[in-house]
C-alpha cells in the first residue's frame, strides 16, 4: 500500500473515531500494513497538523492517537459548543494528583495527606470515571484501593502514567508565592 494512502486512511479513521485509536487497531483495519508504516504515517500527519495553518492536532493520549482542537482556539470552540466550561477545582486536582502518584491508595490514606475528608470528591471522581476502585486493601475493613482510569489520561492529555512529571523530592519543596488575588468565599466543592 502506498505511503500516502495509509496516511489518508489513518486521517479518516481518526476523524470518525470516538476515542483514542491504538496502533494495534489501525493495523487491524488497514490490512497489509505494519506498525512501522503506521507509526511513521502518524508522525507525518502529526507534523502536518502541527506546522500547517490547522485548528486540529494529532495527540498521543491514553495509549492511542486522537484528533484534538488546537489549544489556541479554545475560546471559539467553547463559544460554539455553549455551556459553561469544565472546571477543575483544587480539591479535585489535589485528590486526583494523590491518587495518580500513589495508586493504588485508600480513601483514608488520601485523607491523611490532604488533611481533610475526601468522601464527596471521591464520589464525584468515581461518577466521572476518572478513578475507579481497583482492589481492596488487606487491612481491617478491607477498604477500596483507588486508581486512575483511561478517562483520567484522556482528560489530562497524558499518553500514560509515566508521563506524569516526577514528584519533587522532599528537600526540593519550596513554598510558592501567595497569589495576590483572593477568592470570594463560597463552597469549594467543585469539579
Amino acid at each position, binding site marked *: 500500500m502506498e505511503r500516502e494512502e495509509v496516511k489518508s486512511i489513518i486521517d479518516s479513521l481518526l476523524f470518525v473515531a470516538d476515542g483514542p485509536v491504538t496502533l494495534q487497531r489501525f493495523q487491524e483495519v488497514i490490512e497489509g500494513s505494519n506498525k512501522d508504516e503506521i507509526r511513521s504515517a502518524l508522525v507525518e500527519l502529526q507534523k502536518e497538523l502541527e506546522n500547517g495553518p490547522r485548528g486540529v*492536532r494529532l495527540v498521543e493520549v491514553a495509549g492511542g492517537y486522537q484528533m484534538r482542537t488546537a489549544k489556541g482556539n479554545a475560546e471559539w470552540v467553547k463559544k460554539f459548543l455553549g455551556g459553561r466550561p469544565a472546571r*477543575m477545582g483544587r480539591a479535585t486536582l489535589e485528590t486526583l494528583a494523590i491518587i495518580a502518584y500513589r495508586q493504588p491508595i485508600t480513601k483514608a490514606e488520601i485523607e491523611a495527606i490532604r488533611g481533610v475528608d475526601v468522601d464527596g470528591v471521591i464520589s464525584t471522581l468515581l461518577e466521572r470515571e476518572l478513578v475507579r476502585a481497583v482492589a481492596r486493601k488487606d487491612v481491617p475493613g478491607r477498604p477500596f484501593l483507588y486508581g486512575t482510569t483511561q478517562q483520567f489520561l484522556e482528560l489530562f*492529555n497524558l499518553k500514560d502514567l509515566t508521563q506524569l512529571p516526577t*514528584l519533587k523530592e522532599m528537600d526540593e519543596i519550596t513554598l510558592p508565592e501567595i497569589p495576590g488575588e483572593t477568592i470570594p468565599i463560597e463552597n469549594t466543592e467543585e469539579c
Partner: protein
Amino acid sequence: MSTQVQLEIFEGPLDLLLHLIKKNEVSITDIPIAAITEQYLATLEVMQSLNLDLAGEFLVMAATLIHIKSRMLLPAGDGTTEEDDDDGEDPREELVRRLLEYQRFKDAAEKLGQREILARDVFIRSGTPVEDVPVPNLREVSVFELLNALKRVLERLPKENVHEITLDKITVREKMTFLLDTLRARSKVLFDALFAEVKTRMEVVVTFLAMLELVKARAIRIFQDELGGPIQIEAAAGMDEASILPVISTGEEDHGT
C-alpha cells in the same frame, strides 16, 4: 462590620498552615509554633464568625498545634511526660513532615491543572462533554417554593376531621418506587398531579419525603418553567449524562436509597 474581610478558600488545615507559614516568611522546618498557632486560631475565629462550615479537621489541627506548643515549652529530654516521650525529638517534626508531603501534592495538582485539559483547553470531535448545559426555559425550584407547594397540597386535604387510625402503611421507600415507576411511564409529572390521589396528611408527607430522597439521590429533578409556574418533576439521568442529554428516563432506581 465595615472592615473588608478577605479570606482565601483553604482546602483544609494543612493548606491554611502553609499559607500562614508563607505569609510570615518563616521556614517550614523551623515553625514559630506559638505565633503560627495564634494566627491559626484567629483565622478559625474569622471563619466561624462568617458562619463558614468549619470542618472538624480544622479543630483537630488546632488541638494538635496547642499540643505541640505545650511540648515545646517543656525542657528537652525531660522524661516526665507519659506519652509522646520520644527522646527530645522536635515535637514539630511530624507536622513538618505532613506539611511537606501535602505541599508536594499541591505542586503536583497545580502542574496537573496546567495541562491541556479536555473540554477546557482542547476539545474532541462531537460530544465533548461541556458541563452544565442549561436546559432551556427550565429553572430549578427553590426549597421555599417546594414548601409552599406542599402547604397548598396540605390545605387542599378534606377539612373534616377524619380520624386517621390507619397505621403506617405507606413507607417512603414504597413511595419512591411509585414515583420512579410513574416517571418511567411518563417522563414528566406535575407536582400537583402527584398528590391528586393522596388523601391523608401522612401520605402527603411520606410522598413529599420520598420526592426529597430522590432529589438527594439525584434520581429526579424538580423544575418549573417560570417563577410561580407549575412545578414539574422529571427523571434525571446520571450526573454526567444529565449534562449532555436533555431528558432521559432510564431506570435510575438503583440510586434511590
